[in-house]
């Protein structure tokens, strides 16, 4: 086609395209600007307060789970925003990790040669992904709440915890000053293991002989910090939860709302990740496995060195979508009263300040930012695991 178009007409067309694109950008930008100005005028006209002045006003309401210091009497709406955001990140972060682990297990199980395992995994996927997440969330929340005993009948857990319909209460670890030494030993152990592994891999590439470093790693990461822990005089104690008149006092508290949301998000997203994993594995030509077997590699080694690296490049892009879904789905927290960003900020703060436009805009921007960062990280990872063509 390039041969039939003369250079001058080609340039003219290109120029035309650029003009068109600039016009489009200006048009869309102008429309957005007009919408903002219009909204601001309407708000002023309707005597509705606008702007972000509310950010530093005292919030005045309580939040059931706060990862950072928050007090209803002194903390601001801005502080409440951060509390909600951290709660969202906590449940989304843990959800992504757990859903990935569960999803990979189910996905691989569905490909198992064991008939029962494969069928059970298939049943799981079909059952979970075909029921709306909101219903599952309500099921988990009400099932969790209804099944657990009340305060008086709290289940005392071995080691000094309690389980009842108010949540799971565990002893709170309290670290003494010289616990720092244990952490340093742990960091050293991890770093040394990484160096050891790099050395082992390079040696294998050079000589072909594989070195088993698992026991060295165990010694460096587990035994060494333990020895330091004992030598430092056991710098760790626990504050145990106790049954009060109404509630369990002290200790670490895991809310049933949090548990229900985490379980629902994990179980639901894992079903989709399982299918993504299965698709990725099936996308690796069978000849690759056969070639590996012909070379005498064991099934596990074949999976680790041949199948998974090639499957990952197929898995990562749809996996990213599932992560983004999980993060956005965490806003369903509002249905069961888990204080996430939507519940705290787009709920209580919006209602008390009445500034819907600002609050919703901030909330949307935050979800957008979290999703874009996740997407970026996954793309970087995708590039890292992409098969290098030689």
């Amino acid at each position: 086609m390039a041969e039939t178009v003369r250079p001058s007409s080609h340039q003219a067309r290109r120029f035309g395209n650029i003009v068109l694109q600039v016009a489009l950008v200006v048009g869309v930008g102008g429309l957005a600007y007009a919408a903002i100005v219009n909204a601001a005028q309407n708000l002023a006209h309707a005597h509705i307060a606008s702007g972000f002045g509310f950010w530093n006003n005292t919030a005045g309401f309580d939040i059931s789970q706060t990862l950072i210091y928050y007090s209803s009497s002194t903390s601001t709406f801005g502080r409440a925003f951060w509390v909600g955001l951290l709660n969202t990140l906590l449940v989304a972060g843990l959800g992504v990790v757990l859903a990935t682990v569960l999803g990979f297990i189910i996905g691989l199980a569905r490909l198992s040669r064991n008939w029962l395992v494969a069928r059970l995994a298939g049943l799981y996927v079909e059952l979970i992904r075909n029921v709306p997440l909101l219903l599952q969330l309500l099921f988990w929340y009400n099932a969790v709440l209804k099944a657990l005993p009340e305060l008086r009948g709290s289940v005392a857990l071995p080691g000094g915890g309690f389980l009842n319909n108010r949540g799971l209460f565990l002893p709170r670890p309290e670290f003494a000053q010289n616990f720092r030494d244990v952490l340093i030993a742990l960091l050293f152990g991890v770093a040394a293991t990484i160096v050891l592994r790099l050395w082992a891999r390079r040696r294998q590439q050079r000589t072909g002989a594989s070195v088993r470093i698992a026991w060295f790693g165990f010694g460096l990461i587990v035994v060494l910090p333990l020895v330091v822990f004992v030598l430092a005089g056991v710098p760790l104690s626990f504050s145990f939860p106790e049954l009060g008149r109404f509630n369990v006092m002290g200790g670490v508290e895991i809310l049933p709302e949090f548990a229900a949301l985490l379980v629902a998000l994990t179980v639901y997203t894992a079903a989709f990740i399982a299918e993504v994993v299965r698709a990725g594995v099936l996308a690796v030509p069978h000849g690759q496995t056969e070639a590996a077997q012909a070379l005498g590699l064991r099934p596990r080694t074949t999976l680790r060195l041949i199948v998974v690296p090639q499957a990952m490049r197929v898995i990562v892009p749809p996996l990213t979508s599932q992560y983004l879904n999980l993060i956005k789905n965490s806003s369903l927290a509002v249905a069961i009263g888990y204080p996430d960003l939507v519940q705290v900020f787009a709920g209580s703060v919006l209602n008390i300040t009445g500034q819907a436009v600002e609050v919703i805009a901030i909330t949307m921007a935050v979800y957008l930012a979290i999703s874009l960062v996740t997407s970026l990280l996954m793309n970087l990872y995708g590039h890292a695991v992409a098969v290098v063509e030689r």
Partner: protein
Amino acid sequence: MLLALGTQAAVAQTLKAVQDRGQLVCGANGTLAGFGMPDPQGNWVGFDVDFCRAIAAAIFNDPTKVKFVPLTPADRFTALQSGEVDVLSRNTTWTMSRDTSLGIDFAAVNFYDGQGFMVRKALKVNSALELNDAAVCVQQGTTTELNLADYFRANNMTLKTVTFATADEAVKAYDSSRCDAYTTDSSGLYGERLRLTDPSAHIVLPEIISKEPLSPAVRQGDDSWEDLVRWVHHAMLNAEELGVNQKNVDTMLTSNAPDIRRLLGVEGQFGQSLGLTNDWAYRIIKAVGNYGESFERNVGQGSPLKIARGLNALWTKGGLQYGLPVR
């Protein structure tokens, strides 16, 4: 939302818009027994619902020309601001910040309420001051949520708040003993108690920890519409004070008492000054009844709630309800 706020032109002409539409759009509760809730046949009933029916009766001489929009506390003000509803009649507390910064105006306090607590009898709690360290279920986006934190702080008590988006969820969680106490306006407590698995196992504590003057609200900027809504309330109050009720309103038309003649439109042009016909109050009383009748039928002795008149008795009987003179 940007688009919804673009309907400003309609704001100043609410009455005309309602008349052209042939229907009043009323923001109501939807889940609060006695105040606003559809009955098993799907008919909306309740004290706040009656108020909207009274407005419709005054405008159309037909209390059924109302479309009820169920609203949560979270979306009620946006619905009113954006013009989705003409009037908000949904047990909403009149506070200074709402009055001054939300672009809405409150018409008249039609129910003086206060926040209370409900607990299980088995806890053997007799006072809200014994609730230190208790877990309390509450609905978010309400003055209740703020009063709760204030009350515990003021009495040096700690609490564990569990916040839900709707009253339904909060009550359900309380019922499954996720919380020790449930808090809302005391009128609401009686209504919600009926929905619990075993209502008799729960008591309402005596403390009233806040002032909750509940009032219908309209958009700011249409003063004549606000006047209309306010005078619907005062017409119902005056009717009760003057002994005019649904049964006797027809015979009262021939009354010689000047107050009654003015109220029912036999004398004067009061209806026309609101943009209505002069028999506007007659229509309200004929269709819905006076304030006392609506109260007793929905939340008082004629209802399962059995709420006493208390502060909502007429001023002549020791209460705060004081009908402004039709003159």
